[in-house]
């Protein structure tokens, strides 16, 4: 799939929506206006968009504690997500899940997840469904550098290989698992480790939407064709702390600033498409303000939306109640 003008706009729209979503939640959280344990993905947008642009609703992804970007990129409703994060009954999970559990199975979004690594076996299950039902759907597990050392992740690389599942391991390496550098926590080399499980693997610059998009194009084509699982090692960076409230003192001074200034995925995207004359600056600016409006409205909606009813405490435990 070559990127036409429409696609480029869509890609930018998705990335910009994520950024605005995250930046605004950051501010709202500082002011104490949203509850919960929140992990923001600002800085990592090119990965979510570059991958999900290749997916259809029937393809599944599973995400992590840092799931807003993946959810938005996979097509979850902005208002439904914002309502959820505000703990409202109109939220995607009726206010019962929150930031760490946003899910929309109708969009192929199997859930953010509070347990590091847990989304990966789940993704294998979605891939298994595709295999058994004989569709050509694929399933993508997003996970972090820290999650790369969980047993669930490692086992599933093997399982997916030997079961020949249509599954993609999207390792988003932002350099840290909480406060711990990936360079310390990961023994050996990421690509070699994946290959040691028999998985084709490649590294890609996660700040560059086009790099992610191109790599994923080839991967998804092969995986859909049934050649078995693959891994993408996507190098990127998160701008905010590990969770909202974390001052990120474990990062060298100025590290985040430098990445923002030199490699920001939105900036790079704008440069590329305007330099190449594919889109105009004015168009992108207009999109930016559309997105601001969208998020404004979502927040407005979320603030006004009703809380869950007391009785909701006891529903959705089993199929019968």
């Amino acid at each position, binding site marked *: 799939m070559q990127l036409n003008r429409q696609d480029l706009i869509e890609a930018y729209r998705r990335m910009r929506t994520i950024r605005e979503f995250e930046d605004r939640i950051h501010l709202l959280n500082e002011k104490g206006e949203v509850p919960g344990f929140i992990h923001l993905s600002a800085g990592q947008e090119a990965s979510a968009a570059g991958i999900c642009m290749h997916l259809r609703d029937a393809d*599944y992804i*599973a995400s992590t504690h840092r799931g807003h970007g993946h959810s938005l990129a996979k097509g979850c409703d902005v208002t439904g997500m914002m309502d959820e994060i505000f703990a409202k009954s109109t*939220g*995607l*999970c*009726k*206010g*019962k*899940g929150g930031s760490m*559990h946003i*899910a*929309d*199975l*109708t969009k192929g979004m*199997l*859930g953010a*997840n*509070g*347990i590091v690594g*847990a989304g*990966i*076996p*789940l*993704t*294998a*299950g*979605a891939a*298994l*469904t595709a*295999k*058994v*039902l004989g569709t050509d759907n694929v*399933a993508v597990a997003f996970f972090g550098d820290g999650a790369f050392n969980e*047993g*669930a992740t490692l*086992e*599933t690389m*093997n*399982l997916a290989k*030997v*079961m020949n599942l249509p599954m993609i391991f999207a390792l988003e390496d932002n350099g840290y698992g909480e406060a711990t550098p990936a360079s310390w926590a990961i023994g050996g080399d990421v690509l070699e480790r994946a290959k040691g499980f028999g998985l084709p693997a490649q590294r890609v610059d996660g700040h560059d939407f086009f790099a992610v998009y191109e790599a994923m194009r080839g991967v998804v084509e092969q995986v859909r064709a049934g050649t078995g699982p693959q891994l993408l090692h996507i190098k990127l960076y998160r701008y905010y702390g590990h969770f909202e409230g974390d001052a990120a003192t474990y990062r060298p001074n100025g590290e985040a600033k430098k990445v923002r200034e030199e490699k920001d995925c939105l900036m790079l995207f704008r440069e590329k498409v305007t330099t190449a004359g594919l889109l105009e600056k004015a168009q992108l600016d207009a999109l930016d303000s559309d997105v601001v409006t969208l998020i404004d409205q979502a927040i407005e909606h979320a603030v006004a939306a009703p809380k869950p009813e007391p009785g909701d405490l006891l*529903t*959705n*435990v*089993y*199929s019968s109640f």
Partner: protein
Amino acid sequence: MSVKSFREALNESLRQEMRRDPTIIMIGEDIAGGIGGAGEEDAWGGVMGVTKGLLGEFGANRVFDTPISEMSYIGAAVGAAATGLRPVADLMFCDFIGCCLDQVMNQAAKFRYMFGGEAEMPLVIRTQCGAGFNASAQHSQTLHALFTHIPGLKVVMPATPYDAKGLLTHAIRDNDPVIFLENKLMYDDKGEVPDEPYTIDFGEANFTRDGADVTICALGRMANLAAEAADLLAGQGIQCTVIDLRTASPLDEESICESVEETGRLVVVDEGNPRCGLAADVAALVATKALFALEAPVKLVTPPHTPVPFAPNLEALYVPDVARITAAVRDVVKD
């Protein structure tokens, strides 16, 4: 209707359900056995032979052997259940839950709730439990209480071949995650089992004996021992009501309380660990909901709060038996 073993009853349920619904799959370690090898393809049909022949009938796109990776394949079953299949996963021994609890406790059990109702989880995990096989501390546990403690799970433990088939069929058709515990000593137990498919509802206890003096609650293999004890005691003038609970979650609270209202006495027999176990749970139910019916202290017949010992003579002391049950009943009726 014909006489079948527990093993055959389970196999028949799986076979009939898989014929009925092409989205039902099976996944586990050596549930076929020999996969990828030069030997016989369906070499085992599970360590206990329960799934024997199913690979042959349904093929390798319905019956999946896996590497030894519980977190991963149980998790895959959970993910498959959320996305359109109805997996019956096999966890060889329930003792191995320690290798995959997260996918059961934090994923399968919580999806529906966390997602505000927008998830189905038609997952069955079949697993073995029970001591008496000299299999020692890591292959002899009976962990239904651990599962019962987790909201969102259903927990089943059949006592007879008839119940095994009916409850498993129900479990497969149920849209919630079900932990289905099979006592490893019972696979060769025999009983009348209808040939056609049928289901037994969850949360509906089975009154296997009727008597006015005391209520005995149990499930799984212990329900059979309780019935044996009741028969013995009947000969000695003590009439017991025996309630086979069938499912630990949901629990048929009503039947228990009603029976205790009638008999005034309660003995709970259970093979799980006593602390925070199912026996305590049933006792607490009565202490909160039918206290004034009690004419004697509740008696719990359980193993001691220890791991399962290896030595057969110790293991025999560990597992509740008919003698301990009758002694407990005699104790409560004399008060």
